[in-house]
């Protein structure tokens, strides 16, 4: 296995606020890696920095062996990095189909096959392909956000709180999909507040607290750790 993503000692600021402190994260090809932690711990900020929406003051980020620390976000998509942002952020006034087309924005040539792949994975989306995304339910919007990210044929998919605001059945479904995506060859970096579910599917995980990495280990180790149980798994 080779490293697909290396985050080396980044420090990110929002104005005066030091949001991310000396964070380092590694992701190997084929893994599911989870970043867990409480609200405001800096999980989303870490993802936003990796995808180029925010900048780090120190350290660097390497994707597939290339330094991407100072590369604009829009240039990373064609390199195989997809980011499903927090709150899904689908284009609410565009149709399901148009949202998928936007996902394939940087691709040249025919995207029909990819659209069919997405519809095969998410049959609900096909039923609603001409509907405006704003009329979809939360679960459907999450499917659309993931489908849209798949359209760029990513090597690494970063998912930010995919289970947020969904019913327990849908949460299970989303995690099943993430596992399936990983099995079909996509490396996953997952940010979750739902630590229990995330640790179940993660090969490895990092726990963020107030902008710092507190502990890291395999999903099993962390799920079994008393400290983690107490802080994040409700006893």
């Amino acid at each position, binding site marked *: 296995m080779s490293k697909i993503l290396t985050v080396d000692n980044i420090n990110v600021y929002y104005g005066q606020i030091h949001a991310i402190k000396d964070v380092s994260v590694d992701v190997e090809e084929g893994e599911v890696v989870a970043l867990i932690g409480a609200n405001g711990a800096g999980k989303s900020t870490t993802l936003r920095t990796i995808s180029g929406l925010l900048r780090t003051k120190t350290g660097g980020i390497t994707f597939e062996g290339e330094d991407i620390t100072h590369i604009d976000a*829009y240039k990373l998509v064609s390199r195989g990095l997809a980011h499903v942002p927090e709150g899904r952020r689908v284009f*609410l006034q565009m149709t399901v189909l*148009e949202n998928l087309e*936007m996902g394939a924005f940087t691709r040249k040539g025919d995207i029909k096959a990819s659209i069919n792949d997405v519809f095969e994975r998410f049959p609900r989306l096909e039923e609603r392909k001409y509907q405006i995304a704003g009329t979809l339910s939360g679960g459907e919007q999450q499917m659309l956000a993931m489908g849209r990210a798949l359209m760029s044929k990513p090597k690494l998919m970063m998912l930010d709180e995919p289970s947020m605001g969904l019913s327990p059945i849908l949460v299970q479904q989303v995690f099943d999909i993430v596992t399936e995506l990983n099995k079909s060859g996509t490396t996953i970096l997952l940010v979750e507040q739902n630590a229990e579910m995330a640790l179940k599917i993660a090969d490895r995980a990092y726990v963020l607290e107030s902008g710092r990495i507190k502990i890291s280990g395999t999903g099993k180790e962390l799920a079994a750790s008393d400290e983690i149980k107490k802080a994040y798994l409700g006893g």
Partner: protein
Amino acid sequence: MTFISNLINGISLGSVYAIIALGYTMVYGIAKMLNFAHGDVIMIGAYMSFCATTYLHLPVPAAIFMAMCVCTILGIVIEGLAYKPLRRATSLAVLITAIGVSYFLQNIALIIWGSAPKTFSSVVPFGSLRLFGGELIITAESIVTVLANIVIMVGLAIFTKKSKMGKAMRAVSEDKDAAELMGINVNVTISVTFAIGSALAAIAGVLLCSAYPVLMPTTGAMPGIKAFTAAVFGGIGSIPGAMLGGILLGIIEIFSKSYISTQLSDAIVFGVLIVVLLVKPTGLLGKKIAEKV
């Protein structure tokens, strides 16, 4: 007959407002800023067309094309130099900058062309249409303006619905970060929007001055404000809203001029705007889509 003739004049004036309002509404939709220099780009476009026909003796289509090219470049340069550095600044800073650019353009025009009004000769080579034995006169400028408006609206509707750049513009106007994560170059998309809006401003300038042939450095200011009003009236950010707002505004203005009072017409126009915004703060076609969670 005067009613019909007023109506036609109103639709024609409103069509000019609508074309200008498109520039405001597209730029607002995508960059979330009010480009108050837009009215002055109209004036520059009209001067360019004037110079091309008067001094360079170019044929009318070439003159209009030249005006569009100059305005397109001007729009991109204004955006790049004045607004792009302020992308993360407060909206008040951007607004003040836009007003500054507006005065800058007016003063440049004052230096180059002086304050004396130029007489703009109409770009429309046909005469007026006389109907009902001369009782109803429709000027050729009105017909051309309304047709131009329809062509532009249909063209833009197709562009934003079908083309890749058009879809990217809609994506950026909805959510810049999400658009960026799709691989869309947001800066380029904003520049293209300014380019399109400014090219349309050139057309509007030529049409406006063909109907009202006095050209001065302040020529663009008032129509610019009115078109901005039209954009808000129709629902800022909405392309059909700009069309509807523009035409309604033109009709209201001409009717108040001919039936109520010429002096009061502007007050009436803005009065109607206030009433509409009190009843429907998002404008006639402005809508907020309900978000389901």
